[in-house]
C-alpha cells in the first residue's frame, strides 16, 4: 500500500508541537519570573530582551504567556480526559446493551445538551464556586461527557450485532471483554478526531470562562484571564492582547489541523 503523505497532520503536529513543547518548558523554566515586576521596564514593546513586550507592571509577557498556557493546557487535557473517560463508559454501556437505560440516559443527554456548553459550564461553576482551577476542570469535564457519550453510543450500537461480535459471544466472551477488547480498538478512528475537537473546545471554553472572570483567577493566570487583562490596556500595550491571542489561536489551529488530518486519514483507509 502506498504511504499517503498527510500534509494536515504534519503541519498540525509541527504547529501545536512547538507550542506544547514551549509550554511544557514554561512549566519548569521561564526567561523571567512571571510575577517579577520592574518599574524600569513598564509597557515596553516587543524586543529581543522581552519577546512579547512587558505589561503595566513591567512583567515579561512572554514568561506570563508560557505560564498561562501551562494552566490552559492542563485544564484542557484534564477536561477532555474526564469527558472522554466517562463519556466512553456511558456510551459503551448504553450503546451495547440498549434498552430502557439507554432511552432514559439519552433523554437526559438531550436535556443536558440543550444548554450551550459555556452556559452549562457557567451553571456548574455558579453552583460549585468561582475562581478555582479544579472547579473549572470539573465543570468543563461534565460539559464534555454528553458529546462523547453520544458518539460512543452510536459507534458501540453499530458494532453490537456485527458478525465478529456475535462469534465472540458464541465463544463465551463476556460483555465486558467484548466491549473492552473487541469493540474499543475499533472506536479509535472516531475517538481520536473527537479528542482533538474536544481539546480545542476545552481550550476555547476555558479561555472564555477565565476571560469572563469566572474561570481561573489569579495567581493561577490562564490565557483567557490575561486577555481580559490585556483588553483594558489595548491602546497602550496592544502587543499584550495580540501575542496572548495568537498563542491561543496557534494552539487551537495546530490541534485542529491534526484532527482534520486524522479524519482524512481515516476516510482514506476505508
Amino acid at each position, binding site marked *: 500500500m502506498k504511504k499517503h503523505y498527510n*500534509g*494536515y497532520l504534519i*503541519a498540525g503536529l509541527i504547529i501545536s508541537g512547538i507550542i506544547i513543547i514551549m509550554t511544557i518548558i514554561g512549566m519548569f523554566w521561564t526567561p523571567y519570573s512571571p510575577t517579577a515586576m520592574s518599574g524600569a521596564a513598564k509597557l515596553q514593546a516587543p524586543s529581543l530582551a522581552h519577546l512579547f513586550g512587558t505589561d503595566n507592571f513591567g512583567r515579561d509577557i512572554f514568561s506570563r504567556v508560557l505560564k498561562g498556557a501551562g494552566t490552559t493546557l492542563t485544564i484542557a487535557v484534564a477536561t477532555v480526559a474526564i469527558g472522554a473517560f466517562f463519556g466512553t463508559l456511558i456510551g459503551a454501556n448504553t450503546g451495547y446493551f440498549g434498552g430502557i437505560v439507554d432511552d432514559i440516559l439519552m*433523554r*437526559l443527554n*438531550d*436535556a*443536558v445538551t*440543550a*444548554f*450551550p*456548553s*459555556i*452556559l452549562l459550564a*457557567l*451553571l456548574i*461553576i*455558579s*453552583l460549585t464556586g*468561582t475562581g478555582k482551577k479544579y472547579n473549572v476542570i470539573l465543570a468543563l469535564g461534565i460539559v464534555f461527557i454528553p458529546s462523547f457519550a453520544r458518539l460512543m453510543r452510536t459507534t458501540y450500537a453499530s458494532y453490537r450485532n456485527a458478525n465478529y461480535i456475535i462469534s465472540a459471544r458464541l465463544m463465551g466472551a463476556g460483555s465486558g471483554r467484548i466491549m473492552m477488547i473487541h469493540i474499543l480498538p475499533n472506536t479509535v478512528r472516531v475517538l481520536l478526531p473527537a479528542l482533538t475537537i474536544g481539546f*480545542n473546545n476545552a481550550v*476555547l471554553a476555558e*479561555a*472564555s470562562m477565565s*476571560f*469572563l*472572570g*469566572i474561570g481561573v483567577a489569579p495567581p493561577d493566570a490562564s490565557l*483567557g484571564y490575561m*486577555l481580559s487583562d*490585556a*483588553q483594558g490596556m*489595548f*491602546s497602550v500595550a*496592544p502587543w499584550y*492582547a495580540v501575542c496572548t*491571542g495568537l498563542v*491561543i*489561536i*496557534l*494552539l*487551537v*489551529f495546530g490541534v*485542529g*489541523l491534526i484532527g*482534520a488530518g486524522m479524519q482524512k486519514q481515516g476516510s482514506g483507509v476505508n
Partner: protein
Amino acid sequence: MKYTAKKIVLMLVTMILVSFLTYTAFELVSGDPAQAMLGTEATPARLAALREELGLNRPFLIRYFSWLGGLFTGNLGVSFSYKLPVWQLIAPKIEVTLWLCLISFILITVISLPLGIWSYRRSGKIWDFMHTAFNQLCMAIPPFFIGILLSWGFGIVLRVFTPGNLPDLHAHFFDAIRYLFFAAVCLAIPRSAMTVRMMRSTVIGEMEQAYVRTAISRGNDRRAVLTRHVLKNSLVPVVTFLGQTMAELIGGSIVVEQVFGIPGLGRFLVASISNRDYPVVQAIVVILAFWVVLTGTAADLVNQRIDPRLRLEGKR
C-alpha cells in the same frame, strides 16, 4: 401532523427536564433565600415571616411548578442583590441579546451558504488544503479576541461606535444595530467557517450519489444538477446545523457581550454568578436553555416541511 405533535411533545419533555434539573441544582446549593435577602442579622421572626411570604414552606414539587408557571406569567421571584422582581430586571436584556443573536444568525446564513457552494466548485488538491487550513484558522479564533480587536479598531480608532455605551434600542434603533453588528461579526466568524465546511462536505457527498451521475450522463448541465437537485437534498442537514448554530450563538453571546459591554442576558448572567444572585442565574439559564430547545425544534419542523420522508417516518 403526527410528526409535528411528536416533536412538540419531545420539546416539552426536554423543557421540563431542563428546568427541573436547573431548579433542583439551585435548590440544593442556594441555601435559604430568606436568609440571603435579609442578611445574617435578621431575627428568626422576620425570617419565618419572609419564608411564609415567599412560599418557602410549601413542598418542593409545588414550588417547582409554581416557579415554572412563573416563567410564563413573568413571576420569577425577587433578585437577592437588587431586591427587584427578576422579570423586571431581565426583560429589557432579553431584547438586546435577541437582536445580537439574530444579526449574527443572518450574517452566518448570508456569508456561509454562498461560500459553501462556491468552495464546493473549487475542489482540487490545493484548494482543498487552503480551504481546510483557512477553515481551521477561523475556528481557532476565540470570538472575544476578534472582539477586542474590533472594538479597538472600530470603536476607539475609527469611532464608529462608543464601546461600552449601547444606544437605546427604541430611541436610536439604527445606532444600536450598528453597535450590535460588530459584536455579531465576532460571533459569526468561527461559526461561518463551520457552516461552510459542513455545507461543502454535504454537497460533495451528495454529488457522489448515483442519481447525480445518472442526471449528468443523461446530458444535464452540471450546474443545473447542482442547483435543481443537489442543493435541495443538501438542505436538510444544513437546516439542522443552522438550528444548532442558534444554540452556539447564545453561548457565544455571553462572552461577546462582555467584550463589547453590551447590557444583555449573558453579561447580566455573569454578573449575577459573581454576586451569587441565584434567582436571576436560575431564570436566565432556563430562559436561554428554552431558547435553544425551541430553535432546535423549529429546525426539525422546517426540515419536515422540506423532506417528506421525515413526515412519513413519524407515521410508521
